[in-house]
């Protein structure tokens, strides 16, 4: 099981030092932790975002795989104003699925290994420019691996209610009495 320990379900992006959460960053580093990319710290079976208060534990996929999946998710649907943890939430179900179904596990691990292979030394996550990663993705976009991850993101990412405000979508409106008194026809620039 993956646990996303998103410490506080508070307002998106309230930075909270990880030390407060009981799991110190130093503890993680002790366990032979690698830092991939600029942001994610991987150690043992977890990925920790050092600045923002979330982390993720994997039990079936390698944590490195999960970290690459998160980057892959962002490369498929890049929204620069959407923080990583939403991408992490979107791909985390693959860890559970990998536990239930060896075929899924193989598809994901092999798919990620293939991306790393194509990227060469440093792996997929080591490619600094999005364009370089995209060049690889365009070569694999018809594979079941890519299509599975992409397809899953359509709901996995965009159906997270917490990200709707980041797009300006207001979601549920019945409890607020609809928009009849809240600007259904307030356009002024026409």
């Amino acid at each position, binding site marked *: 099981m993956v646990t996303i320990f998103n410490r506080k379900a508070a307002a998106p992006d309230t930075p909270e030092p990880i030390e407060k959460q009981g799991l110190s960053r130093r503890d993680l580093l002790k366990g032979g932790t690698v830092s991939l990319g600029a942001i994610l710290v991987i150690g043992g079976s977890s990925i920790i975002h050092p600045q923002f208060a979330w982390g993720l534990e994997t039990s079936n996929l390698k944590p490195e795989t999960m970290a690459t999946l998160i980057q892959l998710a962002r490369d498929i649907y890049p929204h620069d104003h959407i923080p990583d943890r939403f991408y992490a939430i979107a791909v985390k179900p693959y860890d559970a699925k990998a536990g239930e179904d060896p075929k899924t596990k193989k598809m994901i691990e092999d798919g990620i290994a293939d991306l790393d292979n194509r990227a060469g030394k440093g792996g997929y996550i080591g490619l600094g420019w999005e364009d370089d990663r995209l060049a690889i993705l365009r070569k694999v976009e018809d594979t079941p691996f890519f299509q599975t991850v992409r397809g899953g993101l359509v*709901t996995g990412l965009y159906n997270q209610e917490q990200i709707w405000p980041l797009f300006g979508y207001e979601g549920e409106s019945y409890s607020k009495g609809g*928009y009849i008194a809240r600007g259904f026809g307030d356009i002024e620039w026409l």
Partner: protein
Amino acid sequence: MAAPYDLKDDSVVVIIGSGAGGGTLGNELAQKGIDVVILEAGARHEYEDFTNNEWDSFGQLAWVDKRTTSGDWRVAKDFPNLPAWIVKSVGGSTTHWAGASLRFQDHEFKALTHYGKVKGASLLDWPITLAELEPYYAKAEDKMGVTRTNGIAGLPGNNNFKVLKAGADKLGYKECHTGNMAINSAERDDRMSCQQTGFCFQGCKWGAKWSTLYTEIPKGEKTGKLEVRPNSMAQKIEHDKSGKVTGVLYTDKDGKQQLQKARIVAVAGNSIESPRLLLNSESSTFPNGLANSSGQVGRNYMRHTTGSVYGIFEKPVHMYRGTTMAGIIRDEARHDPSRGFVGGYEMETLSLGLPFMAAFLDPGGWGRSFTSALDQYVNMAGLWIVGEDMPQEDNRITLHKGEKDQYGLPIANVNFSDHKNDIAMRDHAYEQGKALYEAVGATRIFPTPPYPSTHNLGTNRMSENAKDGVVNKHGQSHDIKNLFVSDGSQFTTGGAENPTLTIVSLAIRQADYIAKEMAAKTI
């Protein structure tokens, strides 16, 4: 007798499906004192149970039992097991529908006469005329509370409409308004007025939008002559040696198979399930399925020529606020072959929430070209194209050779390919939509492909001659006198208009006919 009815009661009319066609027919018959049992495959959710959340609502109401697809339409690639976006629930697709309620135009009932023979198309004239249907249109508009009829005011325009209207004015379109909507602009029929919540596709939690779920069905039930059985999936229609239908085999809410006897059976399961049921009801007397001596059951599947155009503007629109489809331009609905195609199309406002926009804007799309569009979600306006598509014999519902449903019956395959005329019309409409939004300052335009079909039509077509179609002008099957079709599958051709008002009008007319024939003991 009064509801509930005994399984052995062979005096009842059994209707399969409780949507626009079945729900209306059920109430109309009950009002005349006729005993009716409606078998509905879906559960009963009242309008308080609806949710303002696109995927949750889809999970609650939509028909997600497996179907397969084939043909060159893009839906077959992007949504191979979801050819149609329709409902499995009491109220049928009138829970999800947007409420646009338009009459067909005169010439659309005579498509073959007016358009002439079109290569590859199986055009045919309807066996009824607009003049014959007009009194029933009037009844349906009154029943459904359609705006701009019966002295009912139009709905106020929301932001998405205002953008559409500004563009329409710039292009010189003359007929643009907030639509003929079966949505209360003021309290009517004990239902409140539209609160502009913007979740019409998810079921109206206020009950402002007409749905058989909370109009026809409870009204029929109140007479004591209508019994609705939810979670009851019809599997086979049975017949006797003379060929008359005698009852319907179904699985009840507890998963037990039951046989409800019937004097008359009316099929109203929407245009995929209705032909599937007739085909699955094959017997040694009718080896090709019921009512299928013409071989037309399942053929001529139509889904309207659709598509959407979304535009991005410099400033906010908030298109999702307010009534989803209350905005229309009718100028292109005329038949004018000088545009390069026969028939016409309507342009109607449309908005999807962020989750559905992500799924439907460009299915399969990814990368920044896709995500930069969603980043501008707030600044988007949208319209939907709905036009007449060409009936084609090979666009059809067939039984899958290998795959079966949970009850062991073959599932439906939906084969569809665009006709050249459909493509020419869609391209024209994309151009017009683009010009319209650019005229108001759009900086980017998306010609969005058709969604899974919301309008499913034609698979049990009406025809004058028994060899050309499945049912006569009353929806009565040519082959079996006490077997009727009561939904959109009766449509001979599709017209440019959203179909539900016509489905409801036909159901009201059919109820008159059934009552008359029952009284005369011919059925």
